[in-house]
């Protein structure tokens, strides 16, 4: 596993760093929130991201992408995390692009991948249903009906679902059997509820009431989607961990900047050893989080046999570190940390959402212990 960036990766990291700081800083998120923006992200920004190649990062060159892989997606996500950038990167460019690349037939790939890469089509990935992430407990059913299938059930926490052009929906097609379907959100019987989350970003809930799809809506093998879903989720987990690390590192930076300046008892509060030690501890934890993120992204790209374990360990660990960064950040800011005016609260909120997405620390700890046989 490569834990140090090579020249190409460094270049990408630098260009992403400049791009997001310039085009999508924290105040852009504030504007979307305060204007109660219908879309929840800036479509011009998404087009610019596509022009940069970001939307096609997981898509091969034959289908209009730049085929740079997980490490590249992660490096982009770190920068988005630092700036709290809202965009359909994770939903469309990472999860859905990976799902279609891995499972789609040639005509599905030709139809959707170039448009995802160009930022023209937004596809959301609908997996969760209950309060908690539980990909092995899908209850939305798809029953054969005529030439196609009928879908019944519900989905929740579908990021960017309310503005999606297509949904990839995981459905139960028998005992222990799962199938992925491409579904038009405007299909009859399908109800969408936009759910604005604590981080001012988008998700949606869906109710499926006898939603009919054709046989060609099936993505991948019928009944055999479980391993594809797991593979897609692992890419998502690694990339969201990267975003979560970026948000935490930035929360830490603004907090240490703050304690260097703020004065109480006639001196900078950063002089107090209690705060110094907690900051040094957090620095250490963040360095660990960074190593985990890089190791996982690299393991996915090289097809390391243990990549799946690494990703789960990473999501578990980075979730804990990020939580600490958010909580300590607010505490060390004192009263102003509780105000909407200061950015630290926005980081705390985004971190909470990324902790939950695709399985929180407890979910992955449990999965790892089970897999290791204890």
């Amino acid at each position, binding site marked *: 596993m490569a834990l*140090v960036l090579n020249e190409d990766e460094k270049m990408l990291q630098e260009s992403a760093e400049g791009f997001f700081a310039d085009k999508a800083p924290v105040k852009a998120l504030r504007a979307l929130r305060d204007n109660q923006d219908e879309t929840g992200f800036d479509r011009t920004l998404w087009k610019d991201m596509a022009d940069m190649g970001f939307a096609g990062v997981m898509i091969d060159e034959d289908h209009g992408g730049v085929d740079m892989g997980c490490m590249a997606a992660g490096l982009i996500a770190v920068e988005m995390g630092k700036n709290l950038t809202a965009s359909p990167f994770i939903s469309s460019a990472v999860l859905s692009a990976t799902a279609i690349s891995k499972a789609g037939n040639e005509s599905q790939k030709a139809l959707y991948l170039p448009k995802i890469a160009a930022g023209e089509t937004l596809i959301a990935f609908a997996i969760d249903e209950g309060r908690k992430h539980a990909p092995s407990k899908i209850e939305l059913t798809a029953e054969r009906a005529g030439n196609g299938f009928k879908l019944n059930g519900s989905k929740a926490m579908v990021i960017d679902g309310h503005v999606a052009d297509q949904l990839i929906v995981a459905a139960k097609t028998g005992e222990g059997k799962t199938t992925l379907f491409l579904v038009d959100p405007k299909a009859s019987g399908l109800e969408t509820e936009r759910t604005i989350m604590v981080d001012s970003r988008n998700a949606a809930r869906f109710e499926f009431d006898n939603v009919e799809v054709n046989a060609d809506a099936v993505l991948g093998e019928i009944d055999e989607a479980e391993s594809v879903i797991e593979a897609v989720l692992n890419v998502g987990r690694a990339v969201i961990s990267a975003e979560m690390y970026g948000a935490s590192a930035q929360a830490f930076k603004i907090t240490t900047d703050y304690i*260097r300046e703020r004065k109480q008892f006639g001196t900078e509060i950063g002089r107090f050893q209690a705060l110094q030690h907690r900051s040094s501890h957090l*620095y250490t934890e963040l360095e660990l989080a960074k*190593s985990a993120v890089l190791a996982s992204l690299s393991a996915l790209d090289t097809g390391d046999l243990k990549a799946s374990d690494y990703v789960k360990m990473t999501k578990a660990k980075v979730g804990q570190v990020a939580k600490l960064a958010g909580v300590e950040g607010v505490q060390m800011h004192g009263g102003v940390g509780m105000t909407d005016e200061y950015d630290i609260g926005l980081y705390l909120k985004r971190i909470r959402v990324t902790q939950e997405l695709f399985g929180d620390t407890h979910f992955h700890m449990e999965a790892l*212990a089970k897999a290791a046989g204890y």
Partner: protein
Amino acid sequence: MTDLDVFQKETRAWLEENCPAEMRTPIRGDEDMCWGGRNYKFSSPAQKQWLETMAAKGWTVPTWPKEYGGGGLSKVEAKVLAKEMHKIGARSPLSSFGIWMLGPALLKFGNEAQKLEHLPPIARGEIRWCQGYSEPGAGSDLAALATKCEDKGDHFLVNGQKVWTSYADQADWIFCLVRTDFNAKKHEGISFVLFDMETKGVEARPIKLISGKSPFCETFFEDVKVSKDNLVGELNKGWTIAKYLLTHEREMIGGQGEGVARPLHEIAAGLLGLEDGKLPEPMLRAKIAEAEIDAWVFGQTIHRKLEEAKAGASLGADSSMLKYYGTELNKRRYELMMDASGHEGLEWESERSNGGKTARDWLRTKGNSIEGGTSEVQLNIISKHILQLPGA
């Protein structure tokens, strides 16, 4: 095939042929580690043979230059060697403060004569070193040290006391911090000297620890004559060397956090058994999972930091981060081991408990976050040198 592939193949074959079977079993404790030195009693002929074979190849110190007894390997080659050794479970042929601490400092600050005199015997495991840093009045505040070193024309004269000197009673030589200027600011009157523990006036008295063992000593110096050739670096400039050496020491101590050969959950399952495929205590199980995740992430961090640094270079203040996290993690691991062991882990003398091994090991780990600078001191260093917080 690249050169590295060839090197890997040859290394594998060489190890296969030369590493005795006995040296491929897990280390059970201190008694299985080879420390070398004038008076060292090898625990088995295989241990002696393994040391000599590896030393002849320069592989007790793979990255040191050949002229000083090293293997002259590049960083990547050394990594390949370590991997191949790990694969067959080969033990480290030599554990030594000379390798972990003094060697890197001499390579950077020693003169040519000092390197030629001291490095090869370290590499061959012939001379065992101890570290004379701490004193009764100079622990965390190391620069407050007061052991006096006077210039007597053709030699130095050393008087004073060190404490917590690990293995002073078994070491052949000591690297020692002494005060050579009592009027200068505390960091600016310190020098770094070397001398033989058999010199007249040196006395080491073992101290008994909570583990019941006596790995370290109070060390007294009364009119100890030291040759001027044994001053490393310049007079009164010893602090820089002392700090550089500490970064290597911390890297080494922190490395323990990466964990032991057997994962904690396996040990716990062996002790407590499984019910429905799970450890019977769900809260303990969760903490074990957490500790194992941390151990993996910590391991990745060590690898990343070593990759980022140049071969043989010090990690600087990041060594404090590794030392802090690794030692706290190791303490956490042994607390969990005690939790899983129940009352059998509390036995101190029985044969069943292998002479109280679990409890004694657990107690030993408490020193991890004290030796080489306490956790609090490491956090101070991070605040000062990395975060650059005011007044740190």
